[in-house]
């Protein structure tokens, strides 16, 4: 007998988790199946809603206002601005993120020394915002290549930020290997083990504060690469701040991105608390049904196990998450073989410039107003299948800075609607 639920969500990224969470909180009997690590480990952990209009206008101050003038076919137009707000309200409730106090975007310093507009940011990023006019010291570590603090400080000044900013590089206390992963730094600070520094042994956080302290020149805030703890980031940040007498913030770095991994943990915990069933590590490889999905097959240890549900949500990701695949001949959606519009000639899939107007960035499913994928002819593929997140097409999330927002809003809308419609 098949494993059954009212709503089955396929995919464990931001869209899938939000979808399952929305469905569960609406009282649905929900199961989430996810094949592998989500792409959140590659993401900055910032939750962008809309930073730039499709024509490049921006950075946008108010993303919600701008949503209404997006072109037809953009996922935000499909779900509407109210769904975006409801999704963010749910997100704010289950995470320790900031930004909900205003409709305005925040400008967050990036590890490359630019600023980027975002709608929600982890609490640990809050003291680093570029609209905050307090001077800032950026601190990088000798062996941590993704954040060169002196190099990041220069262009921030060039971009005219309203505060003084300097960068320094210090050795991270202890004897981490030169190519240690960011999680090793984070664990050391979480556990606060004794480390050797300057010939004596002291707790890791105190040793780090001592390494930074001589470089402080009255700056009231200090930014680090995002390695300040995995399980206890708030505590690490607070201790460092107290020792240095400053506000401490993180500059998102990665991959692997600790802010992304922390967000993934928070959402899985919220989903668990909401009573959903969660299964990770096994892919959905096939389905059964015509016009309506009757069952999907999950591959476990070489066996194909049927899973049934009344309503299905497809949130398998885009080209990065492999929810959209391609070969030399064309582009496809691998689970249900839903139609993915794309130019016939693969040399029309990209632009000549690295940051040009790439067709591939918009590859994904087109849907009706209910987020149900459409065939090439414009009819609904399956009555009980909705799609959410990066598997959707019609938007260029890197250019717009809209990836997380679209995943939240469409995930929320799909999960909520699936529960309403389930028997």
């Amino acid at each position, binding site marked *: 007998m098949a494993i059954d639920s009212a709503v089955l969500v396929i995919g464990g990224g931001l869209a899938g988790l939000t979808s399952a969470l929305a469905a569960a909180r609406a009282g649905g009997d929900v199961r989430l199946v996810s094949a592998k690590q989500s792409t959140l480990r*590659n*993401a*900055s952990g910032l939750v962008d809603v809309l*930073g730039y209009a499709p024509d490049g206008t*921006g*950075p946008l*101050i108010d993303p919600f206002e701008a949503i209404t003038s997006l072109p037809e076919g953009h996922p935000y137009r499909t779900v509407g601005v109210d769904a975006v707000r409801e999704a963010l309200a749910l997100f704010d409730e289950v995470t320790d993120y*900031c930004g*909900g*106090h*205003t409709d*305005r*975007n*925040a*400008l967050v310093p*990036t*590890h*490359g020394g*630019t*600023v980027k507009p975002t709608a929600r940011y982890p609490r640990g990023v*809050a003291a680093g*915002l*570029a*609209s*905050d*006019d*307090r001077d800032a010291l950026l601190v990088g570590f*000798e062996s*941590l*290549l993704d954040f*060169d603090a002196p*190099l990041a400080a220069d*262009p921030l000044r*060039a*971009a*005219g930020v309203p505060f003084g900013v300097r960068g320094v590089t210090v*050795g991270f206390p202890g004897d981490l290997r*030169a*190519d240690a992963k960011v999680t090793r730094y984070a664990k050391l600070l979480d556990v606060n083990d004794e480390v050797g520094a300057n010939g004596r042994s002291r707790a890791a956080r105190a040793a780090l504060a001592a390494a930074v302290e001589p470089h402080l020149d009255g700056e*009231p805030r200090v930014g680090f690469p995002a390695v300040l703890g995995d399980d206890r980031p708030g505590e690490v940040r607070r201790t460092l701040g107290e020792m240095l007498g400053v506000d401490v913030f993180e500059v998102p770095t*990665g991959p692997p991105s600790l802010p992304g991994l922390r967000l993934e943990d928070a959402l899985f915990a919220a989903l668990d608390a909401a009573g959903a069933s969660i299964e990770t590590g096994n892919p959905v490889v096939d389905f059964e049904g015509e016009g309506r999905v009757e069952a999907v097959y999950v591959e476990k240890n070489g066996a194909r196990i049927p899973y049934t549900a009344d309503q299905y949500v497809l949130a398998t990701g885009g*080209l*990065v998450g492999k929810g959209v*695949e*391609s070969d*030399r001949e064309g582009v496809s959606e691998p689970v249900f073989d839903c139609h993915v519009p794309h130019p016939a*000639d*693969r*040399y029309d*899939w*990209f632009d000549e*410039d*690295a*940051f040009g107007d*790439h067709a*591939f*960035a918009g590859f994904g499913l087109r849907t009706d107003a209910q987020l149900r994928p459409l065939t090439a002819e414009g009819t609904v593929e399956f009555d009980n299948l909705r799609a959410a997140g990066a598997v959707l097409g019609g938007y260029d999330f*890197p250019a717009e*800075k809209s*990836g997380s927002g679209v995943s939240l809003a469409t995930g929320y809308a799909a999960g909520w609607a699936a529960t309403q419609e389930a028997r």
Partner: protein
Amino acid sequence: MGSSPHIVVVGGGSTGTGITRDLAMRGFDVTLVEQGNLTHGTTGRMHGLLHSGGRYAVSDRASARECIAENRVLREIAAHCVEMTGGLFVKRPEDGEAYFEGKLDGCRACDIPASVISGEEARAMEPHLARDVEKAITVPDGAVDPFRLVVANAADARDRGARIETHSTVTDLLVEAGEVVGVEVEHEAGPGERVHGVEGGREEIRADHVVNATGAWAGRIGAMAGVDIEVRPSKGVMTVMNVRQVDTVLNRCRPKGDADVIVPHETTVILGTTDEEVDDPEDYPEEQWEVDAVIDTLASLVPMLRDARTIRSFWGVRPLYEPPDVGSDAPTDITRDFFLLDHAERDGLPGLTSIVGGKFTTYRLMAERVADHVCGRFGVDADCRTADVPLPGSEDFSVLRDYMDEFGLRSPVGRRSVERLGSRADDVLDVDGPNPTVCECEAVTRAEIRDAIEGSGSDLNAVRIRTRASMGNCQGGFCCHRMASELHGTYDEPVVREAWDELLAERWKGQRHALWGRQLSQAMLNYALHATTQNRDRDPADAGPVDYAAFDDGPTRAGGPAGADVAADGGQNGN
């Protein structure tokens, strides 16, 4: 000697750097000028095959003999640039038996060690070889890193007093009283190593003799002094796979044609190639059919290639030349032999010599012939020593030492670093301070990047060709910004940013021909990392001023939505 003749060599490929080294070793005062990076032209755009000569053993035995002789020389003098993979000429059922026998006879006649193995034996060596391959001939083909080899030639020439000017375009030949007396060059960024943002300038370099070693560009240089050099540039595509599906060079055993060679190269294999005559060595179409043709054709030798991941494709232009009276129709029929053109004798224009045609494997021999010729012209009595004196990196070198422990590197990183650096490993890797891995795909550490920067200024593409950083699976997605960071400290941020943008653009160029399947996924991830996480596509420093006060300044600050107050509150409420 206070008055050594001054020779200007035009062209920083294998031939030009080889000539520069040879002349410098023979006591000449040499200046090399190159319009781009070293290897910018054809040398940097080849498949990396160190010919055994087997390829030419049927049609062109003179070339075949030169190849095997130079193959043996390069294994000695450039050990750290060469990987002796061995090679196979593989016969499929539809390939002619007579040609196979002819190949074997030709190899033997040219002193190329060759023996026949069965299909089963060939598959035991290369398990992914097609089931229906009948038999093969083994030959001593190898793989060579053209970048490393050229940089080593240039570095050695510089150590011997030569001046090396990259990013310096020859804009004219100076001709006085019917004789070439120098060149006029336009430096992109001042003389010396290239630094972004440094004002360029024009320079007249006087010379006692000018050597035109510009390959496919030779006609352009000749035209500056009114001489005709009939180069017939021919383009070929090379497609880079993400892993080594094979560890041996595989040649199709049939008359020369398109898509008949697979060369293992570092972490990749390179599929080649096509042969199409073009009008302009810098401007020709790079076409989808060429990529598809090499993949589909070579899949008949190694079937898994059909659906394997490719990481980029690039095109190179052969500097083919044939004397005006031959008149071959197809580029495949044009000889791969080289020609030394003495313009004094040929055109009545003393002071200029051109070297055209030829191939990478015989670059040293070509250089020797040119240097002999120049020696003759000036009555210098000095023997060529380039066949005996190892290049820097290949002297007294043993990979058996435990470099991993010595330099604190994880084993695959240490092994690969030392393979690239050869006998220079001590100098480069023995650094103070941590030495993290900058490029994980190719295992390139900070020390190696900084060593390359010392040799090449702020040009990250020059750093790339010296180290292989950003040339692996992710095509720079994870390491371009790290490489740029290593410039900082020596160079200011605007220089770093320009170098970084240039590297991103160069990396994108070749990937465009590999955008399907997993490499399209990779491209989307790279785009997301660079545009979403780093916001490099809309850097406010490049755009107009930003009204910072209009944006959110944090949840705990009191200013609220009234923009003007936010900027003026002095940050008092920040805690």
